[in-house]
């Protein structure tokens, strides 16, 4: 499902990722761990085409990306199959919670409004926020906003989900609900790549762990051996 081969990336002459290779099978959860600045988030953004890379190849959910600029059409097709949840949630403030979740299915997949609404309400129910469907995102707590962001990404029914430190912007009290949602997804067989500092969470949810250091893969292996 995910194959990264000898991926290299530099920024302003400095190497950010160097000869990174990893693989993730369908239904597995891969945790990317490492110190700040080790290249975890950059690697995740490369997986979704938000950043280009200089060398190597990348294949995810059946989409192959080569080094250099990517064609817009390729990226749009890839992103329909690869959802992403950001550290800062990035909910759309001008739309209600429900409209945030309905947007992509309607606009990208052309789903009729009734079907998009039904799908969105089911997902909001799944993350425990159906009663907040009509609210503005800013009225929700950080943890609730992150769960809406997960529902929004899931609304496209992606084959792979990418999480960029999903709880690092949250108070400890709010993280549990978000982590529970991600663990539930893992148990349901959702293929995921999660950037995290939380080794406890990684041990609980991930099947494979990749540790990065200074842009290189320091080591990788099964979660119960690595953590």
């Amino acid at each position, binding site marked *: 499902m995910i194959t990264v081969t000898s991926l290299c990336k530099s920024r302003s002459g400095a190497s950010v990722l160097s000869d990174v290779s990893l693989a993730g099978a369908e239904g597995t959860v891969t945790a990317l761990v490492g110190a700040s600045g080790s290249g975890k988030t950059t690697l995740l953004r490369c997986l*979704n085409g*938000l950043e280009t890379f200089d060398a190597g190849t990348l294949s995810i959910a059946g989409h192959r990306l080569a080094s250099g600029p990517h064609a*817009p059409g390729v*990226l*749009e*097709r890839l*992103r*329909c199959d690869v*959802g*992403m949840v*950001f550290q*800062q949630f*990035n*909910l*759309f*403030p*001008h*739309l*209600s919670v*429900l*409209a945030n979740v*309905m*947007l*992509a299915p*309607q*606009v*990208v997949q052309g789903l009729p*409004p009734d079907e998009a*609404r039904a799908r969105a309400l089911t997902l909001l129910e799944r993350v425990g926020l159906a009663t907040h469907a*009509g609210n*503005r*995102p800013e009225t929700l707590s950080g943890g609730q906003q992150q769960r809406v962001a997960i529902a*929004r*990404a899931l609304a*496209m029914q992606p084959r792979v989900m990418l999480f960029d430190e999903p709880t690092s912007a949250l108070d400890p009290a709010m993280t549990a609900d978000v982590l529970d949602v991600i663990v539930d997804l893992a148990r349901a067989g959702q293929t995921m790549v999660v950037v995290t500092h939380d080794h406890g969470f990684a041990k609980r949810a991930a099947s494979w762990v990749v540790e990065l250091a200074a842009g290189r893969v320091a080591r990788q292996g099964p979660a119960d051996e690595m953590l």
Partner: protein
Amino acid sequence: MSGARVSALLAGAVFLVASAAPGAELTEVQRRGELIWAADQEGGGPHVFPDPNDPRRLTGFEVEFAELIAGELGVKARFQQGQWDRLPLLLGRAADCVINGIELTPARRRDYRCSRPYFAYALQLIGRRDARPDSLAALGGTGPGGRWRVGVLTGSAAELVMRSRDDLQVEVIGYDGTIDSMEQVASGVLDAAVLDDCIFSFYADRFAGLRAVDRPFSGGLYTVLTAPDTPGLSAAIDEAIGRAIADGRLKALYDRWDLAGRQQMLMLRDAAEIPPARQRTTWELIRETLPLLLTAAGVTVLLSCAAFPVAMLIGLAVAIGRLYGPPALRTVLAGYVEVLRGTPLMLQLYAIFFLLPKVGLALPALAAAIAGLALNYSAYESEIYRAGLKAVPTGQFEAALSLGLSKWQALRHVLVPQAVRIVMPPVTSDFIALFKDTSVCSVITVIELTKRYSVLALSTGRIVELAILTALLYLTMSWPLAVLSRWFERRLERPAGTPH
């Protein structure tokens, strides 16, 4: 406060003091050693215009006439520039008198002091050599596009005469510049123009494709205008004109300018006294002018409401093009913004209305005004939208892209709606600015509220009453607009229920 402003205030104060006692104004002119006469050099020849050999110097038969009168009063003549249809408003403020082809009419005799006539004019119908109308009588029938489109100088006797002729099938269009209507006839926008015969004679060589249609059909007399409370000055000017006629200096002046001096003297000798018009009551004034002011207010609203949405759309498209378009497009759009921001709106309106017909694109005045306002404001709106789009956090764009939206879908559904909310206050402010800028459109013959006020204030002399009435109309229009803008802002602040 600048030195110029202080000087202007002092000059105003001197004028006020001078007008306090009868005859004091003449003493003040003589003490000052200058007779300040107002005219509009844009009005052109043969009256007052920049000397072609030395454009810093003014020439024209009225320049010589003003020097003649000033000399008779024992002082020097000093020129004061003003817009022709507003020249009388300078009296008592910045000028002692107006000498600029001011026709002697009953209304002017009622509202100002008018000297004895110094020039006799006739109105001439002007058309293209190769086109109808071929006579004045032809204007009584149907023109090529229905009614004949006839240009006149705004506020002139030609406008009064043509608007009062119910027997003619004409749409009368007023212009600020004397030769504007001739330009428009030559370029085919107008069917004909009516102006003083001496003006056409003076410019005939420049407009080889135009001809005088029929003989001059109406006429009148030019007068020197002074403020109502200046009997001493007015009498002195009358005496000066009388001496210049009697000793042949005025005839010699007209002969030098090829203005048929002998004929002029005969007409001035036989000039009949014109009685002043009856003073209106305030109620009569409102009843007579309100319909005209309301119509003009409608034009102001139409211009604003038609131009601003177009400006917003173009501005948004330009902003998106500059931020997300290919490099070549960005350069072109940056040039578009700089040209429109860097040149005056009035110049742009002139270009659209007077220059485009020369390349075969003749827009009606209203359409040209809307286009000019929309294009000019689109440059400002684009900069506001550009700032608004840049103010939306990058994460919003990335989140939209990560959901599979294309760049344009992300703009349409995520970035632009947020940017619009951010820029609503400055955009609302610009709408109010455009509302006021519609008054500039009078330069291309569109008569909106300010222009109508100006013309009515001049023709009636009831400046204060009409100013209050006009201000009330502006308030009546702008208040609902302000309420509407605030409602729109509140509505945009609410989240949308579903994607658009």
